[in-house]
């Protein structure tokens, strides 16, 4: 067992241009300040990739990072993240994933892997106790994710494979990096960055274990966390029984389920694509990531395919957003996304955008809302950049701009919005508009407060004071992404448990408030990164449809997103100026004094 608490203390640096690999110690001051995962990734990306770097050039880097809790055995401590400059949005990006790969990478004795440069020919990286090798991947290039993963010897929790599919090889801006077969670092196009480096896969095998400083306290935290996860109906019943797709009916019932490219906020076919329908007709079994007692993963089967998913966001993107109520078609589209290595949210929502453009006669295609029969073929065409798929492959904003209607892209900062309509959940709209990686529900989520009543229900239409909740949940999400654990744990267990688990593992006392302050630090640094890239207040916005077109019917009838007053309050509450720039006072308070000049 590693003698340090939580961190392994090493960074592995691989230069694909030169073929050199090297190790260096992790800067422990930096680790204490940013923890790991997304936080450490953002901090390192600040130094590594400046505004002059094209996301798909060899100068961009991929920073794979674990956190101090990864691999410790704490509930859901299987996760890791990749940080890079996003080809989809041009913003700072991190995407994180579960499964086994993150835990296994940490067992190789490293906290961080930086991949830089570009190989001349397709290669894959193998990190084993014997050493690090860069191997020929020419025979693997072009292969879909399942075949690549199988060929490279994926073996549960012993040998784990991370790779890109055809979409990443073809630099789709929606390309995911896939791990353990069907898990994905999905959003923002990290798969395209990996493809641009001619890097097909990274295989890990490890033997080391992270150290835990206070074993007794850690065991108590394991016990208490397990108790709470078992007690919560969400984490002990809803998610295990139905998966994340259990949210379909819940969100639809309150009139916040975007439908037909956000033309409506309730879908008449929601029941047919719900968690209940999935469980009844297509579920084969449940599955779980390493060290996860929740087990929200579905394995589903149709006449044509069998595999993991679909998640709620996926079923919504190919379902309600495309006006499709055929769950089998959605499962098959999800499966194809996994094979191609595509982000399901962006892919589904881009197809929905294309459907609207086609219905308006702007796009010459047979795509129409409700055309379930076209979904799988369209996903495959996007993955291979074939026919019209080539136009969709870089996301809805580029597609809609090409046809002169950027307003029909349901995105923020170029990232497609997920399955919650900001007109029916006012806080969610503010959250999307201010999300540092573009419209995203994993940068905090108002679902708990505005719909589920976690920890207590607040009024979803309330505008005054909404910024406080959004900021707190953005900060909490940032720190959870830096630990790195699964956000579903937070549906049953409060942050104070994570702080105590972190303290037990590292031996460093992190009061709950101080741990959440780490999240605030990360959020502010990411904001500075985006400002350095040229993003400004005008980019903190939502599609015009959501600001101007009232929801036509249902429980949110008549509402638009009241973003402007919330945004004004948000900047002030964040300690930012009226242009959304962090003030010197705020930066000093967060220990980001070195960035004061950059903010000016």
């Amino acid at each position: 067992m590693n003698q340090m608490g939580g961190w392994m203390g090493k960074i592995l640096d691989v230069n694909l241009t030169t073929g050199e690999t090297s190790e260096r110690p992790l800067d422990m001051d930096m680790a204490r300040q940013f923890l790991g995962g997304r936080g450490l990734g953002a901090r390192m990306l600040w130094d590594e990739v400046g505004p002059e770097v094209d996301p798909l050039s060899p100068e961009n880097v991929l920073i794979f990072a674990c956190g101090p809790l990864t691999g410790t055995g704490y509930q859901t401590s299987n996760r890791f993240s990749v940080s890079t400059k996003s080809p989809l949005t041009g913003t700072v990006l991190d995407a994180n994933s579960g499964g086994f790969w993150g835990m296994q990478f940490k067992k190789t004795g490293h906290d961080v892997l930086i991949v830089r440069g570009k190989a001349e020919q397709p290669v894959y990286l193998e990190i084993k106790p014997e050493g690090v090798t860069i191997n020929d991947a020419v025979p693997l290039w072009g292969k879909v994710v399942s075949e690549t993963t199988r060929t490279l010897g994926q073996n549960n929790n012993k040998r784990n494979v991370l790779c890109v599919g055809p979409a990443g090889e073809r630099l789709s801006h929606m390309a995911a990096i896939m791990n353990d077969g069907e898990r994905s670092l999905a959003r923002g196009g990290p798969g395209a960055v990996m493809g641009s480096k001619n890097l097909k896969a990274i295989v890990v095998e490890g033997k080391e274990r992270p150290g835990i400083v206070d074993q007794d306290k850690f065991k108590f935290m394991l016990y208490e966390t397990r108790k709470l996860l078992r007690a919560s109906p969400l984490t002990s019943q809803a998610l295990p029984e139905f998966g994340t797709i259990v949210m379909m009916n819940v969100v639809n019932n309150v009139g916040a389920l975007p439908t037909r490219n956000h033309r409506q906020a309730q879908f008449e076919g929601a029941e047919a694509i719900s968690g209940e329908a999935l469980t009844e007709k297509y579920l084969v079994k449940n599955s779980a990531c390493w060290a996860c007692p929740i087990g929200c993963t579905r394995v589903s089967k149709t006449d044509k395919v069998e595999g993991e998913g679909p998640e709620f966001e996926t079923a919504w993107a190919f379902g309600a957003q495309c006006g499709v109520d055929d769950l089998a078609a959605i499962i098959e589209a999800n499966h194809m996304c996994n094979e191609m290595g595509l982000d399901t949210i962006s892919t589904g929502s881009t197809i929905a955008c294309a459907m609207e453009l086609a219905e308006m006669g702007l796009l010459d295609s047979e795509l129409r809302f409700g055309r379930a029969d076209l979904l799988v073929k369209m996903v495959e065409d996007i993955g291979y950049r074939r026919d019209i798929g080539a136009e969709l492959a870089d996301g809805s904003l580029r597609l809609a701009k090409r046809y002169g209607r950027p307003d029909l892209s349901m995105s923020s900062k170029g990232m497609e919005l997920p399955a919650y309509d900001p007109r029916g959940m006012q806080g969610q709209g503010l959250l999307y508009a201010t999300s540092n990686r573009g419209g995203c529900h994993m940068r905090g989520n108002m679902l708990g407060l505005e719909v589920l009543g976690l920890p207590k229900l607040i009024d979803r239409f309330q505008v005054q004071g909404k910024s406080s909740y959004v900021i707190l949940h953005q900060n909490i999400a940032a720190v959870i992404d830096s630990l790195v654990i699964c956000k579903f744990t937070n549906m049953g267990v409060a942050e104070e448990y994570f702080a105590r688990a972190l303290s037990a593992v590292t031996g460093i006392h992190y009061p709950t408030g101080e741990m959440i302050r780490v999240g605030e630090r990360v959020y502010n640094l990411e904001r500075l990164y985006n400002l350095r890239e040229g993003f400004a207040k005008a980019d903190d916005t939502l599609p015009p449809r959501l600001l101007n077109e009232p929801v036509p019917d249902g429980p949110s009838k008549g509402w638009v997103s009241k973003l402007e007053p919330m945004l004004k309050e948000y900047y002030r509450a964040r300690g930012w100026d009226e242009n959304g720039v962090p003030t010197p006072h705020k930066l000093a308070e967060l220990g980001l004094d070195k960035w004061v000049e950059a903010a000016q």
Partner: protein
Amino acid sequence: MIDERIYEQFKEIGRDLYEAGMISSHGGNISMRLGDRVVIKRRGAQLGRLKPHDLIETGLEKNDSGVTLASTELLAHRTIYMQTPALAIVHCHPRTAVAFSLSRDELVPIDNEASYLLKKVPVVAEEFASGTPEMATKLAAALQSYKIVMLRGHGSFAIGQTLDEAFHWSSTLEESCQIMLMAKLINEPFIEYRKMAEGYGKW
């Protein structure tokens, strides 16, 4: 102008605190953080009978005319908001918990509900236990790690994302202290029913 939805929350929690016997007629105070503003009960207003004009809005960090009317504990509330993730604060005088705070440095519940929700509640002491910067600083420091803290001989300060949540911790503490009191009165040997119970005292 304070949103009617926000006033409703104050009115309901204020009434519940009074009816639960956790404050005297004019005691206690509650507040919410709204962005960079704080909404707090007017000084001298009755929590059990709040009217819209009993809510005072002022800056989180900056003073304005609102401070002339705000609760005596405004300083404590502001300090807590600036130093912790709190978005709402409930300060009340749960009498059984106050009684226990006179003889203990921490309250470690023995009942299942409070063990589950609170684990342990620290007691902080301050010579001037009302409205002073020293008290505010001590409270805020403790609330970095705990969601509810007792001020010796005075009352509890609970934080949450909503008033509802902070009230939940407050009422749980008082209920737990009443159970502790009853168990002491029964005066029979305690049968430990919780696995790893020693962990609560170290929370």
